[in-house]
């Protein structure tokens, strides 16, 4: 029996009074991209730090390839690559020197190192800038070097902590392609992101994390399904009308619509019929909407629906 790439069981972590992780559990299979999706401060980085041995859990356990991140930390470090929120490369060294340094520190055999560094530079489109100091790199290029640095010792498990934050669209697309290639070769990737699109595009499995808890988990399709088959959005000209409409629909339809500005959002399994009923009710009370849309739920809808309770109480 082979252990999963990552196993997190009932992990808790507090910093003083602040609970960062409150009973977090999930599992990442080998060769899979798993996305931890959440807002800033939701607990994404705290989770990654425990898995990369940078921090230890207060309770529960975390394993990488069956190795405990506390008791077998040294062995875990041999098998992981980390790209943190900062592009952690040395500005005054060239791209090639940065990769060689990591190679030496991870004990890549000397005769292999030069080839491996060349291979990574080529693959990440860095050959041209390889012998220039990193200081002059663009944000996207730095990021690519940062990810390449995490791969010098060929780790079977890779952590990407918000890898595309602050990148332009082109760099983001390029990075996504690289992640897909790595996964095709069998690397397991734990990705943290606040971008639903990123999770949707890359991950086979997503855990939505909010306030240090996993509030939902599943494939992108499953998460969308949790919101209902379709979303009805009804827009009004004024806040006052939105409030009245929300009250009416809550009373007569039995399910509370979500309000966002002057837009009401209904999640429904029978989109068209639900729209008809809503329009009938609004018409009977002379509440005229200005816009009406019926669409498939996006991951955004799922995220908002799943984290709404904590979002409002805050």
């Amino acid at each position, binding site marked *: 029996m082979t252990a999963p790439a990552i196993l997190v069981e009932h992990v808790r972590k507090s910093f003083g009074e602040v609970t960062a992780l409150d009973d977090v559990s999930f599992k990442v299979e080998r060769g899979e991209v798993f996305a931890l999706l959440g807002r800033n401060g939701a607990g994404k980085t705290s989770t990654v730090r425990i898995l990369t041995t*940078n921090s230890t859990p207060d309770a529960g356990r975390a394993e990488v390839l069956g190795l405990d991140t506390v008791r077998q930390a040294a062995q875990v*470090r041999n098998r992981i690559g980390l790209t943190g929120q900062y592009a*952690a490369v040395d500005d*005054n060294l060239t791209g090639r020197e940065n990769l060689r340094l990591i190679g*030496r*520190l*991870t*004990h890549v055999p000397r005769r292999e190192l030069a080839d491996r560094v060349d*291979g990574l530079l080529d693959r990440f489109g860095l050959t041209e800038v390889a012998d220039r100091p990193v200081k002059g790199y663009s944000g996207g290029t730095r990021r690519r070097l940062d990810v390449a640095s995490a791969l010098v010792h060929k*780790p079977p498990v890779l952590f990407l902590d918000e890898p595309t934050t602050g990148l332009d669209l082109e760099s983001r697309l390029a990075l996504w392609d690289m992640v897909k290639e790595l996964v095709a070769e069998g690397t397991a990737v734990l990705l943290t992101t606040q971008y639903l699109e990123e999770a949707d595009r890359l991950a086979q499995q997503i855990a939505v994390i909010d306030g240090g808890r996993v509030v939902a988990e599943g494939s992108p399709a499953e998460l969308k399904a949790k919101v209902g088959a379709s979303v009805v959005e009804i827009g009004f000209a004024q806040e006052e009308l939105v409030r009245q409409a929300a009250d009416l629909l809550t009373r007569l339809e039995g399910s509370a619509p979500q309000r966002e500005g002057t837009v009401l959002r209904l999640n429904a399994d029978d989109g068209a019929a639900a729209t008809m009923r809503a329009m009938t009710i609004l018409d009977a009370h002379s509440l005229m909407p200005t816009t009406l849309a019926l669409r498939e739920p996006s991951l955004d809808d799922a995220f908002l629906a799943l984290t709404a309770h904590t979002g409002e109480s805050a």
Partner: protein
Amino acid sequence: MTTATETTPRQPGALSAAISDSFAVAGRNLLNYRRVPSLLMASTVQPVMTVLLFYFIFGGAIPVPGHEYVDYLIPGILGWSVIIGAQGTAVGLAADVKAGLVQRMWSLPVSRPAFLAGRIIADTVRNAVVAVIVLGMGLLLGFRPDGSPAAVAAGVALMLLFGFAASWIFAAIGLGVGNPESAQAATFPPMILMVFSSSAFVPPDTMKGWLQPYAEHQPLSAALGAVRGLMLGEATTGAVIEALAWVVGLLVVFVPLAVRGYRKAA
């Protein structure tokens, strides 16, 4: 390129790995000094300015029985310069924390003290360069050590060794502070405490009575006692042993503290 193989990477022995990791990191830091010479400025300019300040301005007011003041001063400046160097260690490590490098290093299978030892080795090389500059200046200003060239060299080596040990104190502070500007400020008090209440510039027996026991036996004064002994041809085995004991003592206490700071900063 396959990345998902389950083979355990072959690991060299722990000690040889620690040494080779340290030198890999030292290489990185030396490259930094070569690429950005301004990083060297602070650690070179300050000792040079201090030599001039004390030689031309304060020196005349400081009586040192049995010696020309410049003979007393130059070994003191060597001590001052390794402590300035140690402050550079703190600032550099704090910058590494801020850049996220420390976090990545911790997640790599790098032997624990190597990331710190590497920087301190590089900074010791830099201190050696500064020592040569200070000695050269001293010779120009009339520094005439009575000790043999070998004894003078041994004196420099001993001061560099002391600087290596003292740097771990400052490394622990730099890692604890975690950003370069604060590291500069946070290391200032220990620096002053160590250098100005020592025998670096002024003989301790001219200080206030209550301060003298500390000023005579604190680590830097102990090191300076031995270094002056070697350079001025009055070497006493006891002084050298006292200095070496401080080196060992500082390392025993502050290497673990610095590694703990590293762990927290990661």
